[in-house]
């Protein structure tokens, strides 16, 4: 049969010679290779001292966003809860009282917002469904916990730090989205 390219190599299937059947030489060669690997650089990353860099689209823990003045974006519309395939998000809405304009952006806000990290599959559909840019997935993991109730994250655990009182933490938590926002604006 004609070969399509010139890169095809003919497979040689000669029976092993007497020396090859002894196999000792091959074993020695293998042992030399493993010995050389002892002195090569190790590929381990010592977590938690060193951390691996994530890609910008990494889907980690959720964060509830605020706008630049520090008002919460979330209006408890429930679109993220409906979009979640694992039914991990639950929320309760409440009405904004007259003295709380600096806390919440619109008249309805989420009084209770809970995500069950054991159910969450980190798919990002809640981030895509949100109309107010209130939920997005950041670059952190959900750390380990001894009990189940430690995995149900409430609103305080998920809120981004206040941009006026904690500007550096806010910037760090915003991460890559700050760049995207600047590109949008």
């Amino acid at each position, binding site marked *: 049969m004609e070969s399509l390219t010139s890169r095809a190599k003919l497979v040689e299937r000669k029976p092993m010679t007497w020396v090859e059947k002894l196999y000792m030489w091959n*074993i020695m060669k*293998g*042992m030399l*290779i*493993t*010995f050389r*690997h*002892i002195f090569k650089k190790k*590929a*381990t990353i010592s977590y938690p001292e060193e951390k691996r860099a994530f890609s910008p689209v990494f889907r980690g823990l959720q964060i509830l966003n605020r706008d630049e003045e520090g008002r919460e974006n979330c209006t408890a519309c429930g679109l993220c809860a409906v979009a979640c395939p694992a039914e991990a998000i639950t929320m309760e809405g409440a009405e904004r009282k007259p003295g709380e304009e600096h806390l919440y952006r619109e008249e309805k806000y989420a009084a209770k917002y809970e995500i069950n990290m054991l159910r969450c599959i980190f798919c990002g559909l809640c981030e895509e469904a949100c109309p107010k840019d209130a939920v997005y997935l950041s670059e952190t993991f959900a750390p380990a916990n001894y009990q189940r109730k430690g995995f149900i994250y409430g609103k305080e655990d998920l809120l981004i730090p206040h941009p006026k009182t904690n500007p550096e933490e806010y910037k760090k938590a915003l991460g890559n989205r700050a760049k995207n926002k600047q590109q949008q604006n």
Partner: protein
Amino acid sequence: MLALDWGFVLEKLILIISIVSVSLVIAMYETYAERKVAAIIQDRRGPNRAGPFGILQPLADGLKLFMKEEIIPNTSNKMLFVLGPCLAMLTAMMTSAVIPWGDRIHFTLFGLDRYISLQIADINIGILYIFGVVSMGVYGIMIGGWASNNKFSLLAAMRGASQVISYELPMGLSLIALLMVTGSLKMSVILGQQLDGWYNVVHQPLGFFIFLICAFAECNRTPFDLPEAENELNFGYHQEYSSMKLGFYLFAEYINMFISSAVMVTLFWGGYDIPFLNDAEAVKNIGYNLMAVFQGLVLFGKILLFVFLFMWVRWTIPRFRYDQLMNLGWKGLIPLGLLNMVITAAVVLWLTK
């Protein structure tokens, strides 16, 4: 009081206890060394979280084994079930009785003046004793397989036992060739000849090679670790064991490795002989006790090199199939051992003409 030499009994007892505890500690750290060596060869780091550099890792493993639930199956033969791992451990430790761990120490405390030899039993059938005890190791495997009351465990135990006994034959043949060269079965005599002359590996290179391969097979180490593979995947002969009994089986393998290395070093590589040093003169200069310490360190250094060799080969070669294993043992090593015997006999006769 009985007409016993109580000093003799006491010194042997202390020697036994210290050697057994040293073997146990070394076997414990061999598990740690195995993981570290495996990691270093595989471009990763190995356990380094439990204590500095992971030194306390074997303690954590031992604690885990202790804490697991001890299950004895209802339909098993209860006495044999417990006996299996005990036998494996027993034969692993018994071989350490005839290995010379050092020359002599000069005990001068309490007004006594004794020379205590660091070999527990210097019997005149030294090598034959080792061979016999190793043959008893088959019992541990077979009893483990039978007492589990499990057809698959029994079959796996048969395979493991057949591997062990088919590699005892070439081991015996290489020992016969060694006997032709040394002329005595006594371990101290064999070692004595190596102190003055060349190491036996120079006299018997092929014999050493065969003995090395058989030691790999006796300890169930890769590439001959078919019994271990069976136990991981499906019903092997220690599938039904849990907790400390399983720990005994696994531990017995590591102690076997340590003792096999010790035997190989003693028979072929000069035991506690410090190379390039005339031992008799050194003893006159620094005394027996310090010399015993140095000799012990040299012996452990050589043993550790061999243990490293065991682990190095483990992470290099894939394991043999059962028929390849049997072929190698019966059709490869036994003819080689016989050839070695014939050549040795011819050379010995020619040299002593």
